[in-house]
């Protein structure tokens, strides 16, 4: 059966829904109307699963589809486009849209060559989208399905992290992961395995299935662990664990720190970074893009990389090559205080099949700074910006993962947050030249394991750019190294003394929970942080147990002083922290 027939067959299941489709170069465009958002997702995913489908553009609307909002958005873009299309900002060889970990990784990789490169980011800082609310796990590549691009780039990317961490000096620990097999693992299938058979399968069959999957995916070193060895690895793991699989190739990072490090190093090697810069349209000459129009003016360019994350589909459409629709998938993560760090040594998960529909795996991870995180969940949401947290989801995490570590002090929860994954309906990475715009490269659908794959994604993207005609001439002055902001937490007293002699602000502790000094905050501002949250991501100020209760004002005052703006104009991320002055004072 041809592609057409297969798509038709899927849509037949939704009789009475008034659906139609067209196919162009392997991309399926769906039209019509369905009742619910869930149906919209379901149809997209089913079509996306069909072999040979290279992308699904889901133009179907559901009841309650925010038509008005979309029209407003388009009008707003059109207006900004008209105002800015004739203003030129500059001329670039490669323009990267999106300052997440993908965009910054590609930028840094491109900065090795004699090229003029810029990143444009709509937010006030880099790493404010999917990248900032990620659990920071560098997956080994076992989980990724075979025959996918994400499997290939994941397995390769995770092994490139050590070098990245060495050059870029971000915190990275290769902690390995431990997957527990417990009586709950195949609970749903228990009825098929009577009596002792169930335990036998869990103990002696399932672990080797995982090892086989690892071997097929190209992940070495995976071992089956049983008995007391399990608790030597993880002393607090569930007592009823029957067997465990140990995976050495798993690392942990702070994802925003990786992106910041990449951006800093890219900038050092000549990449220009424009924040508060939103793409509203493209200038084209025939099929080719000649310029990207933003609220700042037009960036003329020879090549465009679409690394816009959640907005990649909108960028693709604006550029004239709509090949996929992003369906946002939100995940909630719960963060615990540093005093819980001793409870977890590896990335720890309990294998439960089939996966819970709202968590799809997930687990308990240590972080490079000694905290512990639980999660994430996985919930389809219609709104790309919906980072709200439903307390029931937090409860779900707290209940579900309790079986892994029953003694864990859950009352030490200090924060939870939601991030949104940029999933496409084909559920694989989409890294390829645009089908209908010859100088546009898609780097879209970068959901998990996107962070783990980032180094390989960057390399792969550059191969693609070369294939598209970009000439890569190495730059002898390329410097791969980036120095982190020194941190009081990690210093010896003698080093602190030296620094204090040079600048007393090294001895002025501003954030007491995380031990962050005024000098660190000033340095973060110097390196480009413009907001409270940007400072937080670079220094950890405000990330401790009081969640900024004590230091927010102090940090805001330092930012205000360093940037020369009134306290009432200091931003949290996008909006001012405070309303204004009392009785109109000091204005």
């Amino acid at each position: 059966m041809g592609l057409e027939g297969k798509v038709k067959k899927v849509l037949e299941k939704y009789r009475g829904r008034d659906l139609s489709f067209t196919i162009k170069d392997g991309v399926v465009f769906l039209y019509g109307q369905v009742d619910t958002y869930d149906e919209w997702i379901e149809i997209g995913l089913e079509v996306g699963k069909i072999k040979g489908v290279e992308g699904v553009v889901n133009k179907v609307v559901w009841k309650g589809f925010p038509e008005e909002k979309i029209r407003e958005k388009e009008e707003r873009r059109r207006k900004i486009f008209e105002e800015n299309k004739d203003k030129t900002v500059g001329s670039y060889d490669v323009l990267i849209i999106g300052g997440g970990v993908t965009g910054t990784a590609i930028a840094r990789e491109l900065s090795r060559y004699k090229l003029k490169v810029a990143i444009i980011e709509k937010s006030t800082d880099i790493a404010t989208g999917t990248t900032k609310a990620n659990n920071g796990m560098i997956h080994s590549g076992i989980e990724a399905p075979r025959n996918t691009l994400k499997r290939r780039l994941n397995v390769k990317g995770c092994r490139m992290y050590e070098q990245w961490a060495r050059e870029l000096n971000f915190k990275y620990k290769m902690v390995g992961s431990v997957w527990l097999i417990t009586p709950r693992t195949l609970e749903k299938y228990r009825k098929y395995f009577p009596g002792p058979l169930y335990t036998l399968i869990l103990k002696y069959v399932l672990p080797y299935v995982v090892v086989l999957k690892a071997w097929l995916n190209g992940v070495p070193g995976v071992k089956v662990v049983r008995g007391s060895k399990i608790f030597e690895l993880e002393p607090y793991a569930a007592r009823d664990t029957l067997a465990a699989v140990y995976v050495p190739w798993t690392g942990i990072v702070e994802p925003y720190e990786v992106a910041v490090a990449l951006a800093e190093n890219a900038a050092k090697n000549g990449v220009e970074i424009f924040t508060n810069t939103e793409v509203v349209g493209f200038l084209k000459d025939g099929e080719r893009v000649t310029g990207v129009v933003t609220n700042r003016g037009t960036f003329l360019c020879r090549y465009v990389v679409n690394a816009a994350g959640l907005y990649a589909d909108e960028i693709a459409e604006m550029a004239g090559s709509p090949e996929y629709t992003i369906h946002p998938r939100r995940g909630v993560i719960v963060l615990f205080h540093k005093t819980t760090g001793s409870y977890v040594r590896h990335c720890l998960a309990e294998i439960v099949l089939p996966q819970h529909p709202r968590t799809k795996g997930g687990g308990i991870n240590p972080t490079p700074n000694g905290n512990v995180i639980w999660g994430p969940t996985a919930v389809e949401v219609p709104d790309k910006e919906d980072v709200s947290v439903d307390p029931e989801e937090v409860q779900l995490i707290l209940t579900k993962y309790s079986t892994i570590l029953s003694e864990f002090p859950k009352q030490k929860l200090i924060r939870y947050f939601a991030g949104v994954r940029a999933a496409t309906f084909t559920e694989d990475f989409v890294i390829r030249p645009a089908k209908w715009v010859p100088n546009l490269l898609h780097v879209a659908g970068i959901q998990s394991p996107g962070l783990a794959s980032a180094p390989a994604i960057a390399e792969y993207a550059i191969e693609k750019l070369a294939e598209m005609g970009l000439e890569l001439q190495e730059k002898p002055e390329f410097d791969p190294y980036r120095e982190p902001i020194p941190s009081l937490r990690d210093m010896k007293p003698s080093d602190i003394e030296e620094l204090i002699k040079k600048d007393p602000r090294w001895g002025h502790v501003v954030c007491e929970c995380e031990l962050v000094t005024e000098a660190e905050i000033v340095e973060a501002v110097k390196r480009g942080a413009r907001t409270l949250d940007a400072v937080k991501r670079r220094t950890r100020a405000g990330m401790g147990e009081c969640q900024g209760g004590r230091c927010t004002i102090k940090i805001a005052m330092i930012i205000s002083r360093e940037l020369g703006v009134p306290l009432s104009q200091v931003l949290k991320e996008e909006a001012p922290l405070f309303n204004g002055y009392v009785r109109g004072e000091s204005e």
Partner: protein
Amino acid sequence: MKEIRKDVVVVGGGPSGLAATAKLAELGYDVALVESGDELGGILIQCIHDGFGTKLFGKALSGPEFAGNFIEKVRGLGTDTFLQTHVTSVERRDGHWILEAVSPKEVIKFISKAIVYATGCRERTPFEILLGGTRPAGVYTAGMVQRLVNLYGVLPGKRVLIVGGGDVGMIVARHLYLEGVEDLLVVFPEPWFVGLPRNVQQCILDFGIQFRPRTIVKEIVGKEKVKGAILVKVDENWRPIKGTEEFYPCDSVVFSVGLVPNASKLEELGADIDPRTRGPVVNEYFETTLKGVFAVGNLLTPFDYVDDAVETAFIAAEGVSKFLNNEPKREKPLPIRPGRKVRLYIPHRIEWLQGRDLTLFFRPSVEEANAKISLKLGDLEVYYTRRPYVRPSLLERIVLPRDRIGEKDGEVVLDVE
């Protein structure tokens, strides 16, 4: 690194730390007071309202006035005070406590025989009450707002929702009212305000500030800036009543949902923590389970009156003296256990053989009229008193004469009926 040898280092220059320092200096000890902030006085500096010192001085002082009394005293005694000095590490070595601290001037190593921790408490965050929704600009804690308005002249917003019916919430509501906030609403899950009755009258009722009992915030709404909150009514068990959700538009939400002792550093040091108070486990002189490390004030449990917090500092100073003089302790400490209707209490054990009468603070777990408060040692009732009314929001104080216990063994049980 500069080395400073002291009999005692007091960590924290708020009211309790100041009181402990003054008392220790009066007793003749060589004390260092280490404060991480820019000035002494702690949280009182931002508490410009009155009501402090009614027990201790017999009049209602403002926070800075109350603190001022102790600051002058400490200065008058010529005690070494270290401002902007943050203790970064503490360890026990060769029978001494070694505290490393940084300040904009230097790195200091204090070598001390005893430590008095007076690090106070912090505000509970919205996360600790499992609040839903987003985290935009415009979400504050009450203490942050107090600091903003009183010290920096910055108003957080124009339409403010205050969450929590305790003293701090009420006091902040009044301040915001006086500073010209247009819409002000206080919500809390209890049937009535839980703070001191005088605050209900003077902060809320006198100004006609709007409030809704049995109401909680379910969700914050707004992506970048607060647009409002979803309020929901709750039943007597604080469970949301379905169908009563209501969107309340506002530009700021201020949380005043309780205080938690700042005990993490003590916990990291190895001190036992009481899950009820979330502060350290202490003996009758407020010595923690670490030898020669005392804890005072709101670090033990948040007090309703600063006067009571300061009393713990005075008692602890006597304890430090007993510790430094190697006064004899009981062979086995006499534990104090909670009986009926006790939510939390301090201290947790009686350790010294001789000494002053025992001052005990506790919160009942329920409201009770004509309550009988008793202490039993085995079958023997060693103390009892009656109060016309007790409730969880009021911290009770009782004093047990030491001779009623003597050298007896067993355990002391605190009971409310």
